[in-house]
């Protein structure tokens, strides 16, 4: 009997290891997988049957004897692939997460892995770049820059060495898709990076993963070792004349290192200080060499694009947001987890439809979309399609696709203050608006809340936000005003403002 028990961090935090250990001494063959991303069901144990995998939710070690006797019916959710929440999604990048053994190259291949890479090996560099361009893939890290255009710049640059750097410094609160993919299907990322290398002529890749993800780093290292052993990485990628080497680097506790130029500084062993652009990293990146920097989700979309063709990916989504987005439902939410679906689903469908409202059962007051630098939105934004342009038009930001739900007990002045506090804590200090502005922001918000010269201080805060937005070198200082201004606009009463 084959059973599948997730080893994803979120599942571990609910006791998945204890559940896996409880199978010891039984006939069951335990396979550790990633998570399906339905956290309210974790630990979700799956049992192989002729009809498919049957899921058992919230399994405890004491349940194992009953489960093996096929008597744990009260915790069964039936066939996992028929489970409505999962069935309504379109899992492309996450197709294998929670399904396969993340460390097994054979399992990866048996589930469609390496098809994209093998196709890429038969194409020219220009053809691969063209395919990625045609797919409409845009940077999933937050900025949404077209991946194909970036790759084309690196392809056209002349240099003795080029690099592929994967930004796995997923520091935004409310986002965990990168972590889950790295823990659940790391070889997809590896494959995407190799394809990027072949496309632009880079033979070396680095994954910069934050130190807060010790399990992801561990899984990545093991998967990479196995990929070398299988001949997927190394001097001859899948027996071809292409070479590609890959290594994982750990961050050291710095949010701003998720900004691409700060990440490069950190990879070069320095303080994670922002570099002014230009030059752009595509021309002068790691060690001053042409470098592709893409987020985990961007690079992990590439194997499927090559395997199924650009048109299949381009056929999903709305307007200029093509393909799927891996949304992450977080915060005070009943059914939190991963919702991968084509761009264009509305915020309300995500939060109420998939999320099932708050976990506390209280009414929703606000949602923050796109991480700590994203805007707070209320129910008036429920009909906004989740896509780069439409969300921006509604005053928000898609960012990395994280949606954090708050119930009506939240005080929005505290949230606005926290945005400034966080910026003060994590600012690299390179530019004045961010370094000084964030501390001044905390002070001014405190004065407003205390009712001190409110009108003048509101004006001052607005002025400060404008300077930070327009004058900061990167998104850290530049977008911190977004949560502040949106909180102030939607919830002035929380700031003690008398209308």
């Amino acid at each position, binding site marked *: 009997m084959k059973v599948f028990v997730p080893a994803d961090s*979120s599942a571990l935090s609910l006791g998945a290891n204890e559940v896996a250990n409880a199978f010891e001494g039984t006939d069951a063959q335990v396979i550790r997988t990633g998570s399906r991303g339905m956290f*309210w069901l974790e630990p979700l144990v799956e049992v192989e049957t002729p009809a498919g995998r049957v899921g058992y939710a919230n399994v405890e070690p004491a349940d194992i004897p009953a489960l093996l006797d096929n008597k744990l019916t009260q915790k069964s959710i039936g066939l996992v692939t028929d489970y409505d929440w999962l069935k309504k999604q379109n899992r492309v990048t996450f197709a294998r997460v929670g399904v396969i053994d993340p460390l097994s190259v054979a399992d990866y291949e048996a589930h469609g892995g390496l098809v994209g890479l093998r196709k890429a090996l038969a194409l020219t560099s220009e053809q691969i770049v063209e395919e990625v361009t045609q797919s409409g893939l845009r940077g999933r890290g937050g900025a949404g820059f077209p991946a194909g255009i970036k790759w084309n710049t690196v392809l056209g640059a002349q240099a003795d060495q080029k690099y592929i750097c994967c930004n796995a410094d997923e520091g935004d*609160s*409310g986002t965990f898709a*990168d972590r889950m993919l790295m823990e659940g299907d790391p070889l997809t990322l590896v494959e995407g990076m190799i394809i990027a290398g072949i496309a632009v002529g880079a033979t070396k890749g680095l994954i910069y993963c934050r130190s807060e993800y010790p399990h992801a780093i561990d899984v990545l290292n093991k998967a990479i070792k196995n990929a070398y052993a299988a001949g997927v990485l190394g001097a001859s990628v899948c027996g071809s004349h292409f070479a590609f080497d890959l290594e994982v680097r750990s961050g050291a506790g710095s949010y701003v290192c998720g900004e691409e130029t700060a990440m490069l500084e950190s990879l070069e*062993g320095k303080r994670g200080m922002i570099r002014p652009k230009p030059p752009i990293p595509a021309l002068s990146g790691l060690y001053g060499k042409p470098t592709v920097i893409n987020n985990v989700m961007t690079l992990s979309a590439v194997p499927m694009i090559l395997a199924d063709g650009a048109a299949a990916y381009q056929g999903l989504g709305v307007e200029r947001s093509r393909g799927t987005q891996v949304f992450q439902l977080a915060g005070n939410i009943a059914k939190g987890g991963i919702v991968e679906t084509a761009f264009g689903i509305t915020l309300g469908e995500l939060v109420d439809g998939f999320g099932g409202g708050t976990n506390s059962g209280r009414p929703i007051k606000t949602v923050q979309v796109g991480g700590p630098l994203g805007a707070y939105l209320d129910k008036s934004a429920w009909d906004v399609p989740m896509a780069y342009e439409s969300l921006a038009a509604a005053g928000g930001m898609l960012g990395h696709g994280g949606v954090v739900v708050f*119930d009506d007990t939240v005080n929005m002045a505290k949230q606005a203050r926290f945005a400034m506090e966080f910026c003060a804590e994590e600012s690299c200090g390179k530019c004045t608006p961010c370094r000084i502005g964030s501390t001044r922001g905390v002070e001014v918000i405190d004065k407003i809340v205390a009712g001190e010269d409110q009108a003048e201080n509101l004006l001052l805060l607005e002025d400060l936000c404008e300077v930070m937005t327009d004058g900061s070198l990167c998104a850290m200082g530049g977008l911190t005003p977004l949560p502040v201004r949106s909180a102030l606009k939607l919830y002035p009463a929380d700031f003690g403002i008398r209308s």
Partner: protein
Amino acid sequence: MTQFVVDDLTAQLEQFRGNNYAVLQALQTTQEMIGFVPDSALDVVAKVCNVSRAEVYGVFTFYSDFKNTAPAKCIVKVCVAEACQANGSRELVDELHNQGFDVHTAKQNGNVQMEQTFCLGNCALGPAALINGQPIARATAKKLIEKANEVAR
């Protein structure tokens, strides 16, 4: 550091000899080996990587992971970012403070040290925490203190 530790550290850092791009990795290797980065280790890293002590100190102070004193036997990282705030991490931090654990100063309490962190990527099961690297969901002060004391024993 004794000469013995200096020699041992120098041997561990040999892979970074003359590589001025390896300061961060050398500091990480040092902390892995010793548990923290003693002041005198900065000189060792500077010498190995062929950079000034000031440059090493600059890197050391930039990243919040690095510690300059021996850490407690049990380190509890408590997430204080937005998604966990939505699940009551502000109240959790206050409660821990009342129980003698200040996550902002990360002051040691016996063999336990609790510190704040911004996001552990477990954002739908908050408040999230890590106890010596082990992830904890739906953290309460009682749960964290009990488990931490267990680990620290």
